[in-house]
């Protein structure tokens, strides 16, 4: 690193008393070693590896991280080694460096070779120089001053320097290797599995990595880039390349000095790099033939911005991670597969974000679906915990996009099939109260409801609230009873899975409001309930909703009974309680005062009723 010291210093009429100097003592040494680095392990790896690279740029160095079996860190380079004079004059001298004259070398502060003192009080240096292998030990002596001891010499035919630092095996040593991952030639790493990621795109000015954070590469050393100092936007894993010396680093060389000049230099490099790479990606996109190709291209691409494509007249949003498929009520997702509680849940109106690894099945068969899908998944190579499984009724979108869809009907059955039990037939009691046959008896129903006093459905006790709710929804007395039922029709209390998407959507919208109204959740809405009840008494708003909030969670489990739904009369519109409440308050500004009070109780309802009556008359 080129270090130029030509500060302006013009003076006149001043008499120089003395020069400042640095006292050489244990405290000063401590400040320059253990107190210099905030992350000693990373610094030792970076500093010693940088020195090794400066020593030899042709043969790769060997870096061995400590393991349980070999608890020491070592770096071996294949440079010329150091002579005893160099050891004495440079290696042991703080601030001494031979690398300040030019920018081809990384070092220059004269601190790096001493960095192991930040962690331990002694380390070993083995220098193979001109046929002699000399072992040195550097240590902090009792007064805090470091000293170098020569221990042993013997002839050798190797060259180079090896530094051995006693160390405890931790993951920090492996993490520290990330700073030297751009070294060329690539260091040989021993003692751990470390893979060098190849950049996905390489130019003289910048690199694009497949993952990670933005970095600055000064010479071969990578530094994290504090993006917030440069730009408010998020930056993909770009590595900006700079020659040594063009960006200032701190004396510990742990990070960049974010001076105004540096920030503008970084900015001047980052923005064109982003624009250039975006152009490269756009060019590649024009060569794609299908959206599936686009998806493949964008996968692992650092630009996460969504792109909109048109296929067969429908627009699809494609990002690097997923394709957004417009919402469709027929899509069901398998959940709980890893916990062995296989369940199909409807996606409802949410957009399906399909990832590369997801598997889509065409929902065209109902028998042994779980077993057949699981068996099929086991044959697929890329199924992981992150794989989502979808069942779709309509394959149009997937065909448009060229995404494969597996029809369940084509999947083989697994194991032996039991003979089907005798199909259960159910009778429907129509609005007239007489028993009616199911018009589609050809296909038997697959579920039935137990009929008894404590009405139970799927292990859930269904209360009479559900009864009244169902009456309101269906406006008809409908029942699904087993053929063995011989009881009186008058006592029938039954609620099959009369699922209706519209009703469901409505209840979902108002679920929280109704829930707050009807439960003691400590919400503000709860305290407004007496006011609402008073308004309902005066027929200004719809009757108070019954306390059904606790039952909402079961609605989604209801079966699709499309056969049954055909026979249902149209649904009466359900009141929008919240809207009505707001409307009344807006129509009668006086009532806002009442709404401001949050401590009404149910005992206040009669008083409120008469009060509101008076207020409205006025």
């Amino acid at each position: 690193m080129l270090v130029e010291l030509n500060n302006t210093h013009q003076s006149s009429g001043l008499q120089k008393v003395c020069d400042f100097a640095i006292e050489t003592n244990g405290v000063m040494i401590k400040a320059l070693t253990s107190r210099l680095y905030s992350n000693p392990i990373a610094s030792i790896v970076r500093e010693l590896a940088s020195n090794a690279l400066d020593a030899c740029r042709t043969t790769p160095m060997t870096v061995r991280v400590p393991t349980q079996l070999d608890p020491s860190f070592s770096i071996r380079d294949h440079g010329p080694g150091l002579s005893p004079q160099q050891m004495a004059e440079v290696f042991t001298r703080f601030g001494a460096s031979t690398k300040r004259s030019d920018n081809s070398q990384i070092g220059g502060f004269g601190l790096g070779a001493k960095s192991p003192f930040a962690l331990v009080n002694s380390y070993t240096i083995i220098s193979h120089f001109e046929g002699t292998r000399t072992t040195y030990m550097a240590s902090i002596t009792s007064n805090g001053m470091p000293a170098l001891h020569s221990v042993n010499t013997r002839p050798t035919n190797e060259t180079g320097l090896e530094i051995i630092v006693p160390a405890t095996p931790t993951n920090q040593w492996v993490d520290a290797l990330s700073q030297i991952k751009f070294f060329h030639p690539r260091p040989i790493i021993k003692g751990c599995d470390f893979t060098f990621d190849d950049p996905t795109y390489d130019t003289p000015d910048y690199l694009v990595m497949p993952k990670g954070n933005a970095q600055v590469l000064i010479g071969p050393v990578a530094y994290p880039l504090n993006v917030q100092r440069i730009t408010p936007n998020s930056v993909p894993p770009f590595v900006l390349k700079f020659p040594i010396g063009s960006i200032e680093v701190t004396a510990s060389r742990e990070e960049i000095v974010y001076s105004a000049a540096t920030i503008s230099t970084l900015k001047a490099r980052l923005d064109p790099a982003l624009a250039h790479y975006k152009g490269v990606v756009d060019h590649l996109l024009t060569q794609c033939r299908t959206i599936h190709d686009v998806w493949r291209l964008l996968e692992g691409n650092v630009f996460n911005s969504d792109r909109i494509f048109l296929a067969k007249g429908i627009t699809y949003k494609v990002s690097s991670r997923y394709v957004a498929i417009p919402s469709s009520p027929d899509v069901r997702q398998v959940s709980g597969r890893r916990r062995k509680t296989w369940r199909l849940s409807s996606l409802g109106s949410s957009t399906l974000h399909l990832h590369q690894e997801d598997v889509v099945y065409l929902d065209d068969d109902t028998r042994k679906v779980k077993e057949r899908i699981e068996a099929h998944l086991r044959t697929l190579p890329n199924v992981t915990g992150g794989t989502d499984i979808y069942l779709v009724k309509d394959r149009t979108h997937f065909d448009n996009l060229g995404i494969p869809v597996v029809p369940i009907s084509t999947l083989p059955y697994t194991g032996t099939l039991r003979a089907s039990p005798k199909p259960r037939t159910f009778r429907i009691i129509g609005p007239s109260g007489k028993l009616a046959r199911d018009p589609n008896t050809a296909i038997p129903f697959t579920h039935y409801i137990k009929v008894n006093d404590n009405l139970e459905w799927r292990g859930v006790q269904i209360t009479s609230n559900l009864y009244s709710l169902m009456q309101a929804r269906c406006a008809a007395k409908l029942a699904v009873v087993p053929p063995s039922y011989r009881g009186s029709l008058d006592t029938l209390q039954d609620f099959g899975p009369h699922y209706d998407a519209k009703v469901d959507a409505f209840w979902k919208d108002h679920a929280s409001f109704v829930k707050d109204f009807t439960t003691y959740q400590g919400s503000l809405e709860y305290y407004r309930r007496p006011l609402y009840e008073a308004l309902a008494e005066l027929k200004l708003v719809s009757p108070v909703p019954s306390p059904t909030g606790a039952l909402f969670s079961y609605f989604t489990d209801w079966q699709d009974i499309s056969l049954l739904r055909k026979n249902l009369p149209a649904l009466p519109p359900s009141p929008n309680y919240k809207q009505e409440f707001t409307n009344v308050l807006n129509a009668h500004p006086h009532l806002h005062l009442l709404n401001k009070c949050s401590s009404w109780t149910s005992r206040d309802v009669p008083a409120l009723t008469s009060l509101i009556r008076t207020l409205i008359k006025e």
Partner: protein
Amino acid sequence: MYPHLITDNTVTILKDGDTFTLTAASPAFPQVLDLIRENRWDDAIHAMTPRIAIEEYADGSLRIEGDTIRNRNGDAIDHAIIPHILSMKAKGFDVAPLMAFLDKVLRNPSMRSRNQLWRFVSTNSIAITPEGDLLFYKKVKDDYFDVHTGKSHRYTVGSTHSMPRSHVDDDPESTCSHGLHVCSYEYLREFGGQRTLLCQVDPADVVSVPIDYHNTKVRVSRLHVLREVQNPTPFDTGVYHNTSEECPF
């Protein structure tokens, strides 16, 4: 005497130009200093080199090939055990319980469970019995019933409890699930219940180590209640003779 250097946090010995070095974090550090003081230089070097120290201590039961530790049958043993071997060697424990422990770990029928057990070993001290079983704590209610249901298991002293292995959740990501739960000292305060029991668990019966709470909780399929503990203390790696007077429990 070999050339050597001892500082506050390192010890380095040179023998024929080869460097042997150790930090104070190693369990062998005090032992090495003692050996140097007694002028037993080769012994000190052996104690400093985990490869030699392990092979010496195991006395033929373990051998190290490259970076792999293998037992007599040639089964690979995870590196997580190394600090424990060195620590037990330094404390002067007999090697047999440790070897029994390793055999029992390898007898665990599930690779998934074994890997989770190694993860437990890498972050916790292991307290073992002379038979090589692991010691754990367990909290129970005042009436010795289990904390979760309060009625399914009554953990009286001396009783053994088991459930089919297939009923124990082996997914480390399900942090609270089916299975008999035991824990190390660090987890005790997270565990509800009034009484603390000391339990003995065969490593082959360990099913999973949930990933939360720094691997301090363990789900097993079988456990034996040794005794009730009034003042639980943290475990230290070593062999505990439940019957002996020195037993800290």
